[in-house]
């Protein structure tokens, strides 16, 4: 039985159809990432799965339960960091963990949990004094207090500096190692590529495509390319020598590869040409390239505070 099953899920706010009949499943132990620009419906979807919002239509089962009707039961088995996690300013991470342990009526080793999320050094600082990354880690620590089978992370690294983001990634990898399923929304594509077993790309309330990052790139990408700095003569030479599609843009020759052997053929042709060349790279499309093609805009255009 999958950890999450969603079919035909719909939610509207007035005339705005925020989630428009989406379906997907998440397997146990999987890291699943929901990608999409702001306003795509990611947070609405994740909040319906957490039992924070009532759906208009569709079937939703989280760990076999209806999240809206069986919220109380479900919340004992899931962990959640809401988007833009905040907490009481004058409470320390260690106190917060113990507070949650009392609410859930479980015995925990607060130091151990704070070690898991790499926050042990700041366990006695007030929440208001923590850095953005440390605040998110405290959110992660709270989501783990009840030893959840499933963790929801809604944009856990938005606004963090690259170092803090990588620290949060390490924590998410640890969760996966412990067999905890994770649903992650993000608008950083390399985050999804780095962490997720499967991703679903969402736009305007619909899921456009879903699968592993490699599958999506293979399906929607433009294939592997060799880029080499040279002049127009080199481009012409490679076109006649290899018969491949060759473009010349701003002093860079771009050769689109079709088959595995093409790589060697192009390299040999460059050597044979005897012309000036430099900065040779072989690269496939990234998830971001695919995303731009699918959505028609950059994902995090003008909406992120941190580095991307």
């Amino acid at each position, binding site marked *: 039985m999958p950890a999450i099953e969603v079919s035909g899920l719909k939610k509207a706010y007035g005339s705005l159809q925020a989630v428009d009949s989406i379906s997907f499943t998440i397997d146990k132990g999987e890291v699943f990432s929901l990608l999409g620009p702001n306003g795509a419906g990611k947070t609405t979807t994740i909040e319906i799965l957490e039992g924070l*919002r009532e759906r208009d239509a569709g079937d939703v089962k989280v760990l076999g339960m209806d999240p809206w009707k069986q919220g109380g039961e479900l919340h004992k088995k899931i962990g959640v960091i809401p988007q833009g996690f905040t907490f009481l300013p004058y409470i320390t991470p260690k106190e917060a963990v113990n507070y949650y342990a009392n*609410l859930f009526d479980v015995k925990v080793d607060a130091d151990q949990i704070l070690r898991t999320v790499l926050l042990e050094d700041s366990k006695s600082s007030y929440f208001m004094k923590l850095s953005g990354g440390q605040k998110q880690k405290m959110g992660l620590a709270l989501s783990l207090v009840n030893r959840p089978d499933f963790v929801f992370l809604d944009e856990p690294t938005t606004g963090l500096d690259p170092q803090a983001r990588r620290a949060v990634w390490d924590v998410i990898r640890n969760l996966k190692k412990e067999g905890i399923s994770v649903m992650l929304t993000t608008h950083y594509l390399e985050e999804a590529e780095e962490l997720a077993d499967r991703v679903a790309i969402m736009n305007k309330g619909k899921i456009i495509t879903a699968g592993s990052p490699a599958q999506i790139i293979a399906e929607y990408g433009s294939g592997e390319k060799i880029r080499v700095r040279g002049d127009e003569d080199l481009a012409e030479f490679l076109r006649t020598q290899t018969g491949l599609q060759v473009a010349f843009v701003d002093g860079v020759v771009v050769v689109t590869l079709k088959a595995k052997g093409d790589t060697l053929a192009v390299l040999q042709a460059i050597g044979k040409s005897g012309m000036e060349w430099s900065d040779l790279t072989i690269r496939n499309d990234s998830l971001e390239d695919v995303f731009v093609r699918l959505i028609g805009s950059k994902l995090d255009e003008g909406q992120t505070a941190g580095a991307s």
Partner: protein
Amino acid sequence: MGAAKRIKADLVNFAHSYSRSRIGLFFGLAFPVILILLFGAIFSGSGSASTVYVQNLDNGPVGSLFVQTLNGTGVLHIDLVPSSQNFSQYLLSNSASDGLVIPSNFSAAYQADDHVNVTEYWNPSSSTSEGIYIVTTGVLNAFNLQKANGTAVLGVQTQTIKSSSYTYIDFLIPGMIGFAILVSPMFAITNISAQYKRDKIFKQLSLTPLTKTDWLIAKIGFYIVLTFASFLLMSAFGIFAFGAHITFTPWIIPFLLIGPFLFVSLGMLVGTVSTSVESAAVVGNLITFPMMFLSGTFFPVSTMPAYLQNVAHVLPLFYVIEGLNNVMIYGNNGAALQDLAVLIVISLVIFALAVRFFKWRED
């Protein structure tokens, strides 16, 4: 069992959070003490004589005798103005409210049995003017009686209602306790609930087994403890700084319990129906300030016009203060029971409304 443990955990967590924030401590403990010191200083016995400026233009002896007698009452402080001064100009330039002018023909008219007036200058908005008028007419009547060779047959002996040693501050204390019961939870909870909503902390808590009723009960529990602490602090400062007499009766306790219950619930209701922290503050002030002034905190409700008294009777704080007056000053516990009954009904309704409208999960 589970609920008790959750409420305790939330109470401890809130107490940590509260005691570390200086603003919370100020409104909870320091503010009531400042209030009692301030009012105690304003209304304590010393310096209570009203100053009155007197210009004696009389050519004969009766004017001076009249001034001496006024001075002898001990309730007025006489400041003589030289007859060369323009009197009303003098009052204005000294920002003085009250003055008396004794005319030049005062002695002559007195001796000739002619009618003569002293002139009182007064400020309609000043509470001292009325007292000065009463004292002045009293002294004038004594002079009239003397002139008619009469003897006073009827007299008045004054005594405060409780015991002769009671002072003005003692009558202010129930009002100020009511004030502390209202202000501290109302301001804090209105603000906290609007902030928690904005920062999605309620949403966060809704993902734990804590229920909204648990949350509200924990806050009520905390403010009950805080209210007892501020009651003891206010009493201590009242006693040591001003020698106040406070009746410590077990009948005070139900009011210290129901008050926080009522105003934490009301603060929650205001905070949760408001759309932003700013609008919650505005709505909170709109409810708190009129209630503060119209419920008999600083002046007795019976001095207000009838229509305002009707308004006072629908304000819950009125029953807190009336009840505290009943148990602390009049010892009228039967009347206090009625106040308590009204308060319990209002509190249960507001608590139920707060729980009903308090949205824990969706925005």
